[in-house]
């Protein structure tokens, strides 16, 4: 499903002293099956933007079109939109409430009024995607570790089988291993089902590793939009917005300054390793 955003404006607490325009004239088109990274300094409006895409926040003006439905038009059933556009909030483990892991994940599908066996199937499938074993299905979600809670919460959204999946800093506060596991699972899902994914992240390494296209926000506006390798060449522009490029990009830039001739397209550790090994082999010959 495609996402089209046209001239979106949004202001928090519009008629009070604490007025704050969080989004200014945002326009953006996302094609079906893209894996998008959304980056920006804290307070740049990332979370605000993604909440408009599934209709949780209503814009002051502008349009959000999902597939061919303009979601803020009269008569549109926002609940069915929210099922198509799955949104995993930041620290999603804070939303857990049921007695058992299984029941909690079933909350979404139950709200969709599905048949019991369909619900069971979906819950099991979602939990297996995020790597929660069957032995934990009947435990209380509050007895799990932080990382497990996060997985269960993500499964809660996956169980609705959204065609668009939006994740707001899904790995914040997780250890490196847990981080890669979760993101690998999301990537697999993206590849096998062809769903559209929007990943909000503060980690440039994660963006470099998983994402095709990056959208950069600053002070409520979209400042850059392009392929990962192109965006991460703009070190100075990104730093001016309080962001950075991946560590590897800094390494490549430093090496190139000292006479190496490495491609600036390199953004991940793997690519850098390959390039350096090839280079060293050639030198030793």
């Amino acid at each position, binding site marked *: 499903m495609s996402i089209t955003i046209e001239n979106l404006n949004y202001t928090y607490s519009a008629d009070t002293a604490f007025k704050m325009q969080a989004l200014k004239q945002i326009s953006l088109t996302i094609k079906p099956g893209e894996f998008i990274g959304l980056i920006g300094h804290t307070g740049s409006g990332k979370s605000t933007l993604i909440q408009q895409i599934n209709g949780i926040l209503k814009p002051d003006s502008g349009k959000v079109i999902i597939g061919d439905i303009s979601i803020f038009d009269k008569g549109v059933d926002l609940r069915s939109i929210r099922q198509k556009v799955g949104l995993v909030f930041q620290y999603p483990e*804070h*939303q857990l409430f049921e007695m058992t892991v299984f029941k909690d994940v079933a909350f979404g599908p139950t*709200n969709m009024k599905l048949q019991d066996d369909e619900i069971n199937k979906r819950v099991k499938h979602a939990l297996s995607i995020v790597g929660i074993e069957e032995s934990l299905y009947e435990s209380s979600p509050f007895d799990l570790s932080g990382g497990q809670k996060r997985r269960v919460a993500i499964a809660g*959204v996956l169980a*609705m089988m959204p065609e668009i999946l939006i994740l707001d800093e899904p790995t914040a506060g997780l250890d490196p291993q847990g981080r890669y596991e979760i993101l690998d699972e999301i990537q697999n899902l993206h590849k096998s089902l062809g769903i559209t994914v929007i990943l909000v992240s503060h980690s440039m390494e994660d963006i470099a590793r998983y994402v095709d296209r990056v959208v950069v926000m600053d002070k409520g506006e979209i400042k850059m939009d392009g392929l990962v390798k192109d965006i991460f060449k703009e070190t100075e522009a990104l730093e001016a917005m309080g962001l950075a490029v991946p560590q590897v990009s800094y390494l490549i830039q430093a090496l190139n300054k000292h006479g190496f001739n490495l491609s600036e397209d390199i953004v991940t550790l793997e690519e850098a390793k390959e390039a350096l090994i090839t280079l060293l082999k050639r030198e030793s010959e």
Partner: protein
Amino acid sequence: MIRDITIGQFYPAKSRIHELDPRTKINGTFFFILSLFINQSLITYGLAFLALSAVIMATTIPVRFMLKGLKSIFIIIMLTIVLNLFLTPGTTVLLTLGRFTITSEGLQTAFYMGTRLIMLIIGSSVLTLTTSPITLTDGIEALLKPLERIKVPAHEIAMMMTIALRFIPILLEETDKIMKAQLARGADFESGGLIKKARSMVPLLVPLFISSFRRADDLALAMEARCYRGGEGRTRLKQLKYKKVDFWAYNILMLYLIIFVVLRFI
């Protein structure tokens, strides 16, 4: 969404009223409310209305913002007015609607009760809108201080209020977040009857309780880690001091009260 509740909210601005010492404002509010109870007549209510309007003008806060606070308790006000209108026993019947009658006594009581309630609420919101929560509790603590001699734990009460007040915006924010997260999972907080609605609150309340306990625990630990041991021997960063504006405010308050009491006896 839920953050638009204004009761108990602080509206930062630069005005004479904002500048006043919290003790002045608390006393002022207290006596204003008292005045509404000691004398009930068109003239005194008119006077109270004028005084309140003057204070609101002086706060520079948009009137629209003040009135927004009334919206959330609109039902209570309406209920008060309607019940008094129909249920006050009286002799002069003005109107009969089926089994209900409106008497002139009922009309009068309904009018006084309604205006009193509205002025009471706006009067107290002037206090909270112009005083930051921290200053407000400082004021309360200072006013309760004399009662420490009869074993009223003034500092502890003030500290509890500070913490409670501090937590209100956090809890509202948290509620907002959890609500959104459950909405994203297809929760429905609006439709259905009373029982269905109550049940739909479970996914909201459980996470809210859990996070409140967690926060309370964290805070207690953090306070202990910083050697908090209660009010004894504790000094403060900001000392309360009366200024010239406070002197004038007390004079005006006295004048207002004298007029009220005098009007009562003539």
